[in-house]
């Protein structure tokens, strides 16, 4: 392959932020492509600044490049000015390391973290010189892959992606590579590993890898009278009817990224990131991430410490984020953060951030300690305005919890507090909506006890029902209804000094809803939006709802049917053949429980609800402590004496904090013996 740099370089004088396209990050691997190695181009379909920090792609980048039979490079969506310059100059999409032509790679693999990037995916395939529709590709074209949270409903992109990969990628990426060595490398073909050079055979072989979904290996049937999806079934005996996600059982075996990329320009999350654990079992019913990443698997505390200290030393960052879906729930979180900030090699200049705080005073205490170097604002996510609403969504935070947390924050010196809420939730009444202002107003009042001037921001997002969650059957609120609720909030908040309401555009919420739960026919809509110029739809300056509604109409669909309609229990859902491990009847029961305003406690510290995520895969929650953190799960101070067997496996090297606060140190060992195996 030949570097396109001489053609790219003259374009960079004409574009904004040219350093997006030069590579050169610390940790970038200038790999040499070889005839016996499968070449992967890992693409984040948004700008460099948004995509570079993505930990999933960085993990796969390292795992692939460690293999003798694989090489991996990276690419991102060029900004509109660069894309125009590239198309005018006939320059295709390229990798940022070697500046190689994307179309010359064996695999181009996308991370899908948000639905509104789908049109960018089509654009990037096209910019790579690859036919946008999978059926038009030959054996000479790259295999187009996608992974990430959005692939739990792959159907809207099924016409464009050759294969989807479900769940944790650490193991399956190597299994896929082994299949491709036979088909894509000269060495593999010469070795006679595969006599076939047909793309169909290659995709068939990929479809046999557990966790891989190849849409072309499945038949889609529609009901003649209703036009609704009737079923998606495997065409072949050796491709599964239901594709199960992949789950790594021990995060401790995967201390990646080992060489986190340090970009030359400022990016989002520009800091060292260390993943504390994967999965979350709080069971918030609106939260897709929490549902599809179960069970909880903690990283051993000593490995966290090593990754932090080695990472800071290697990168020169002065901030580390301890990431996961609910970082404060990590066993021994206090000891972990104290260990970092007290580390003498950090000269007291390192700040630690927890991207998600639990709503309780206890957590604020930890936050006060760890943000002692640089203190910005604190963010809490009560999500719902009333206790009733929070029981529906299973975010079991009492008003007292929130007020105690906010009181702790203001009393410990913070002057800015941000609160996250959702509107358009199931069963929501105006009383629930206005409860948001009532809560926020009280928070301002608490702040005034400590400071003359405080700022409370309530950030309000419109709820989009997500697949593989109990709310997947719920009909999304209309644009008009969400807009009405936004104005309701805005008007109620206006007289409150110190309170600001921010909201997400209800039109963008609607567009997200169009793509989230669509079936394979939604592909035509996405393609039309792209062909009509709809790129960077998650960027408000480029988002255009009319593109989406026009495309829906042109394809005989409506917002009413695609987005606003409640799904029924007996309806075939487009993602029924895709499994995140959760039993459909568990999700349905949880949906009924939601409507009955019945909350469920975190299953990490209570008996199993049999959602299917652990039992189906023979895995368990991996935690260092069987005792919920102080304050209790969800900050509710829930009754911890529920008894019963706790379905957890304990880390072999428990952190010092693993000793339950209310019992002898060996309780954990005893409990472990009783745990399900």
């Amino acid at each position, binding site marked *: 392959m030949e570097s396109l740099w001489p053609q790219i370089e003259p374009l960079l004088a004409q574009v904004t932020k040219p*350093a997006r396209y030069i590579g050169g990050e610390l940790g970038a691997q200038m790999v040499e492509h070889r005839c016996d190695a499968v070449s992967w181009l890992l693409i984040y379909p948004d700008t460099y600044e948004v995509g570079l920090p993505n930990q999933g792609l960085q993990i796969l980048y390292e795992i692939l490049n460690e293999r003798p039979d694989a090489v991996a490079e990276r690419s991102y969506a060029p900004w509109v000015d660069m894309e125009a310059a590239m198309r005018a100059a006939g320059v295709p999409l390229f990798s940022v390391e070697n500046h190689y032509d994307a179309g010359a790679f064996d695999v181009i693999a996308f991370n899908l973290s948000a639905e509104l990037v789908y049109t960018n995916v089509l654009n990037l395939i096209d910019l790579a010189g690859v036919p946008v529709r999978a059926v038009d590709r030959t054996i000479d074209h790259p295999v187009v892959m996608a992974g990430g949270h959005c692939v739990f409903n792959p159907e809207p992109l099924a016409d464009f992606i050759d294969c989807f990969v479900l769940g944790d990628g650490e193991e399956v990426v190597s299994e896929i590579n082994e299949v491709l060595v036979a088909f894509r490398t000269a060495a593999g073909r010469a070795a006679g590993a595969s006599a076939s050079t047909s793309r169909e055979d290659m995709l068939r072989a990929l479809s046999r890898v557990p966790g891989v979904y190849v849409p072309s290996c499945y038949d889609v049937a529609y009901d003649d009278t209703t036009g609704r999806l009737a079923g998606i079934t495997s065409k072949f005996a050796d491709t599964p009817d239901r594709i199960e996600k992949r789950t790594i059982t021990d995060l401790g075996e995967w201390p990646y990224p080992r060489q986190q990329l340090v970009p030359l320009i*400022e990016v989002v999350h520009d800091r060292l990131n260390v993943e504390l654990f994967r999965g979350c079992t709080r069971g918030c019913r609106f939260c897709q991430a929490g549902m599809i990443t179960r069970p909880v698997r903690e990283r051993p505390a000593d490995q966290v410490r090593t990754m932090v200290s080695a990472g800071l030393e290697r990168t*020169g960052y002065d901030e580390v984020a301890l990431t996961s879906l609910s970082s404060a729930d990590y066993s021994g979180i206090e000891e972990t953060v104290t260990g970092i900030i007290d580390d003498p090699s950090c000269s007291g200049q390192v700040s630690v951030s927890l991207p998600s705080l639990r709503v309780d005073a206890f957590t604020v205490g930890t936050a006060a300690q760890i943000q002692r170097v*640089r203190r910005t604002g604190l963010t809490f996510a009560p999500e719902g305005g009333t206790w009733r609403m929070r029981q529906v969504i299973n975010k079991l935070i009492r008003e007292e919890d929130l007020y105690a947390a906010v009181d702790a924050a203001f009393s410990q010196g913070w002057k800015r507090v941000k609160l996250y809420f959702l509107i358009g939730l199931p069963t929501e009444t105006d009383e629930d909506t206005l409860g948001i202002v009532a809560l926020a107003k009280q928070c301002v009042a608490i702040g005034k006890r400590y400071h003359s001037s405080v700022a409370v921001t309530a950030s309000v997002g419109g709820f989009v029902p997500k697949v593989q969650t109990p709310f997947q059957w719920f009909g999304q609120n209309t644009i008009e209804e969400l807009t009405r609720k936004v104005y309701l909030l805005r008007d109620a908040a206006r007289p409150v000094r110190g309170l600001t309401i921010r909201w997400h555009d209800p039109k963008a919420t609607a567009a997200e809803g169009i793509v989230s739960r669509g079936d394979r026919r939604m592909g035509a809509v996405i393609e039309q939006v792209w062909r009509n110029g709809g790129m960077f739809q998650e960027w408000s300056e480029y988002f255009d709802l009319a593109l989406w509604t026009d495309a829906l109409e042109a394809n005989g669909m409506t917002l009413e049917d695609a987005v606003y309609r409640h799904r029924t229990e007996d309806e075939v859902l487009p993602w029924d053949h895709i499994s995140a491990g959760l039993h459909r009847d568990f999700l349905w029961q949880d949906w009924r429980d939601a409507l009955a305003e019945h909350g469920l406690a975190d299953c990490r510290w209570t008996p199993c609800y049999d959602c299917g995520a652990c039992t189906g895969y023979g895995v368990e929650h991996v935690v260092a402590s069987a005792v919920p953190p102080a304050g209790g799960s969800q900050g509710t101070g829930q009754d911890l004496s529920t008894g019963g067997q706790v379905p957890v496996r304990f880390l072999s090297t428990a952190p010092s904090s693993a000793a339950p606060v209310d019992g002898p140190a060996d309780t954990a060992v005893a409990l472990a013996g009783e745990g399900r195996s």
Partner: protein
Amino acid sequence: MRIRFRYSKLGKIRFTSQRDVARMWERAIRRAHLPIAYTEGFSPRPQLSFGLALPTGAESLSEYLDMALDPMRVAEDGVDLDSLPAELTVLLPEGLDIEEAVEVERSKVSLQQMVTSCSWTMRVVGVSRDELAEQASLLLAADTVPIMRERKGREEMDDLRPSVLALAVADASDNLVIDPSGRTVGLVAELSTQPRGVRPTELMRGLIAVSGGSSARSIDGAPTEGASSRIPVLDRVCRTQQWIECDGLRQEPLLGRVVPAGADLAMHAMERAS
């Protein structure tokens, strides 16, 4: 204790901004465990002071950075100025190379305020060597060279002429201007930085203005429709020197490197492909 560094910025990294470079330095300093002094207050920052900002996209042989060290920690750990450039260079991204590190006196005036002019070497496309030479002499002969400049987000008319201290077509054998494609012409200039810094892109507008062209858009690399072949467009820019005045002498900001005012533009023989 205050250390002044001179470093170069060459190759692909020229597409990063001044702010980006500042962050690269901060990370390298932490990796080197340099006993740097931090600002006081709620949000301590390392005490770094850069010379005049380099436009994104321009290369440089003469970037400067002043760094304050914590005297207590220096006394404990010591700092070896001779080995420091090499030690720090390996911790900086490719394309940033530290040439010198010298201890300097603490000054009330910042490095940025002290610099009075900069020397630039440019590669220009869109004009022949003769055309460019003619434009340069027209500019030097003019009493005023009004150009549109952006100031605080507003376009306003400004006279470029007083800021152009020297201007000439470069010797074609100058390593900095050698272009394998042969389509560019070398240009060297000394541009004043007081009261406002003049950028090489603005010099291009001045050349267009004196040769009767419109200065509306020549700098974006996309000549306007119907433009003559006489529109000079920057292909490559390199800052070769920053100058300060000291006791009436023009000199580079590191001690012991005095150059008499008006001396010919010194050319560094240096070729670095990007």
